């Protein structure tokens, strides 16, 4: 299938990549090196490939890469690093919400989208918000606990921030700790279906 150069904006980096029309965003992101986006089923059943698309959590296996052009894509790695983890990532690590870790990036993306909409979710709302993400290790209890802890920590830090600033500025999705300068990367052509 004929490729076209598509510009993808991922975690603050801009990639120009030759992509076939049937390539999913999951395949494209993994081929670009964003291996934190996990391939668990390729049909939207498991949520392991979730990313933020303009702040909304989507299963990247159900989005074509071409459709993501011009939108802001944020993967779990765009939220934080080992040195500067995002409060959600830290809460997952602190509560035992991470076992094998394969579902974790998708879970954290779903959590981020949920807390953007609702900074103080009830347990039912947390369970509803994560219902598209499968985990086989934890039984979900510690994950629910992680979301609750993350929400609490985020509320506390945003209220202390707003009391400092005297305002409640909502922060932009996913870039609290991500590099801010935009880098343009030209990528080699990669084949459709190369779900590395």
């Amino acid at each position, binding site marked *: 299938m004929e490729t076209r150069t598509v510009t993808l904006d991922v975690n603050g980096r801009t990639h120009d990549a030759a992509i076939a029309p049937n390539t999913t965003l999951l395949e494209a992101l993994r081929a670009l090196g964003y291996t*934190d986006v*996990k391939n668990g089923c390729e049909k939207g059943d498991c949520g392991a490939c979730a990313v933020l698309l303009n702040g909304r959590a989507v299963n990247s296996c159900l989005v074509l890469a071409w459709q993501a052009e011009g939108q802001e894509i944020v993967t779990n790695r765009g939220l934080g690093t080992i040195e500067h983890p*995002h409060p959600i990532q830290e809460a997952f690590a602190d509560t*035992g919400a991470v076992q094998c870790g394969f579902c974790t990036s998708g879970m954290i993306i779903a959590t981020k989208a949920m807390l953007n909409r609702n900074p103080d979710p009830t347990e039912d709302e947390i369970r509803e918000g994560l219902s598209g993400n499968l985990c086989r290790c934890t039984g979900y209890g*510690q994950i629910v606990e992680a979301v609750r802890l993350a929400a609490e920590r985020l509320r506390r830090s945003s209220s202390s921030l707003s009391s400092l600033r005297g305002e409640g500025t909502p922060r932009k999705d996913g870039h609290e700790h991500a590099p801010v300068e935009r880098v343009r990367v030209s990528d080699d052509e990669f*084949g459709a279906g190369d779900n590395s």
Partner: protein
Amino acid sequence: MIDNIQPKPLPEVELPELRQIGRPLRRVDALGKAVGATVYAADYSMPNMLRAKVFRSDRPHARIVRLDVSKAKALAGVACVLTGEDVKGANLNTDMPGQTGRPTRSGSDAPVLALDAVRYVGEPIALVAAETVALAEEAVGRIEIEYEELPAVFDPEQALRPGAPILFEPDNVVSRYTIRKGDLEKGMAEADLVVENTFRMPFVEHAYLEPDAGVAWIDEQGVINIRVATQVVEHFRSVARALCLPQNKVRVRGTMVGGGFGSKEDVTVEIFLAFLARETGRPVKLVYTREEAFLATSKRHPFKITHRTGVKRDGRITASHVEMVADSGAYPYLTPYVLLYATGMATGPYRIDNVHVDSVAAATNQSFTSAFRGFGGPQAALAYEQQMDAIAAALGMDPLEVRRINYLRTGDTTCTGQAVTSAVWSEECATRALHALGDRTSGSKTRRIGRGLANTFQSYGRITWFHDTSRAWVGVEQDGTVVLRCGVPDIGAGQSNSLCQIAAEILGVPLDHVTIYATDSAVTPLAGTSTATRQLYMSGNAVCLAANTIRARLTARAAKHIGVSEKEIELGNSRVWVKDDPDRFIELAEVAQLCAAGGIELSQLAQFNAPFTGGLDPETGQGDIWPDFTFGAVAVEVAVDAETGQIELLKCAAAHDVGRAINRAAVEGQIAGGTHQGLGYALMEEFALKDGRVVTPSFAEYLIPTTLDYPATEVIVLESGTGIGPFGAKGIGEPALTPAAPAVANAVADALGVRIHEVPLTAERVLEAVDEARKKGLL
């Protein structure tokens, strides 16, 4: 009946207060996974790498009449196509030699690629390596094959009947055990009542989130390297055997595993990759799709288990006869061991003096079955724990009371005559789990409330005649930080973290001062498999041995430096000090430097050997099988909708004696997660086959629990301190799963007054039971 239960007081146990052990510390692997930095098998790429695909059988039993791969080979971009002819004689190491104490079934080992015949849908026939996944898929589509269908068998009992289609001559028997303990006839004659029930369990899929994956390449020494998601880096030996290579010419580099649960105990992609890398001379990567991970890997064994139990009116069991039939699928894999586990645990954590167990596993033309968390224990438990409730019902007794009367105690023997040597806290666990349910939820005529309890035991550590060993290397750097090298595969349960926490405790450093290098068959000391709930026990003890040796050297050097005797020295917080005079101290880093300057070794390799025993008596099946057992209980409350057949899980509590919790959060995670898998086993999971073809090929059809299905389990961690692992720990990985499913089955039977003898407890089965209950006037 089992309401308002008070926890049985615990025996007095003195566990020393420790600095690292027992605390809910953040696992060493947690943050890397949380930020997405952890690299899994499918994430690795190599320069000039090919991509592989497998061509598989779509027939349950057929002779291969013609196989033509020429059109696949001719496709531009295809580097190689391999068939059974190219790998003749190589097998997947699925019929392990004689370790069960039974002779190997020659010829029934699965070939790497089918040659003359296929025996199940999904059996590998050809391998393709091409420049891209798309090209490899296209090449697979161009492979031509003609079959001659053979009669097939899909039921293990039918497979054992005369005239059944035979998968391997002389018959379909894959494994058989006989247990004879005491005098069954005498025990039955003493009974006031004999209770008989038959229970059934289906195929179950592991459903780990990470599909099987690996990358293989040949390095500059000619060594085949395989980076793979595996529970067993020692499969480098299986690869070497298949390729007829010296064992030191294969290296398996494990990765963090995205869930295994037993499925990644078998060889998965390793041998395919090794052949392709050798054939092409290029790196090759193979990643299963979700559908392939379902189709082509092992399942939990379906069992049919019949219990005939003799019991006195006062509740004492006098005799038990258990018959088991298990479905091995098309190839043996670990079936003989799984059947042994189910057989050895057949009568549960109860003292029964007169026992017969007759068990058999038969080959069928279906997905092969092998290890799955619990390894036959959960199937055995679904039968013996439902039987305990059936006995209670037949006697009009409380289910907890019947169990109390029959619980094993320390020193009593299992059905194979093995004495239990550690604490047995069955009642302590059961009463706490029941107590945690609180007040009974009120129901109605159509919304029936039921409560169920299950008490189980499960071994940890491998079969004692396997002569199991593990090795670990511990070193202290000159800044006082610690390096641990151990071949342990980390499958997500916190295997590496536990070892780090143990080293941190013994060497007196904070957990973040320990770095572990793990799961490499060539450069980390071999630690054995991450299976059988053995790593904390085995490798934990190996780390203890190594770390204690170094600790002794450090404290001796520090004592000499301060000028006191070693007995007066304390080690902790990266510092050595005089117990009675903390102001006299030396930093650990300084001690390490003094040792280095004086030529004192700062590293140690240690090997831990499990206790060895002989095998079972071939006539009576009497003898020791396992090093020790973990005892636990689950209690649940359910609401059963008599109109729709829906079951709602209202409450769930799990209590286990883990001996000693190394990391409390990790232990709680194991118990909660294992319980959850058990709940799915009871309520929704069935890997369904029809005439040998899979009808639940993906997560869209094979449902596993989501966040919305069950409430969080209340986890109760008990610590008897009597385990044979480090610091008195027992194992918890597998034991965590075992009691949940029978507890649910018992709760549903309590709600309806009628028992459903087969899991999963689907709405259809519930409605049949409701009809039966109505006919009996129970609803």
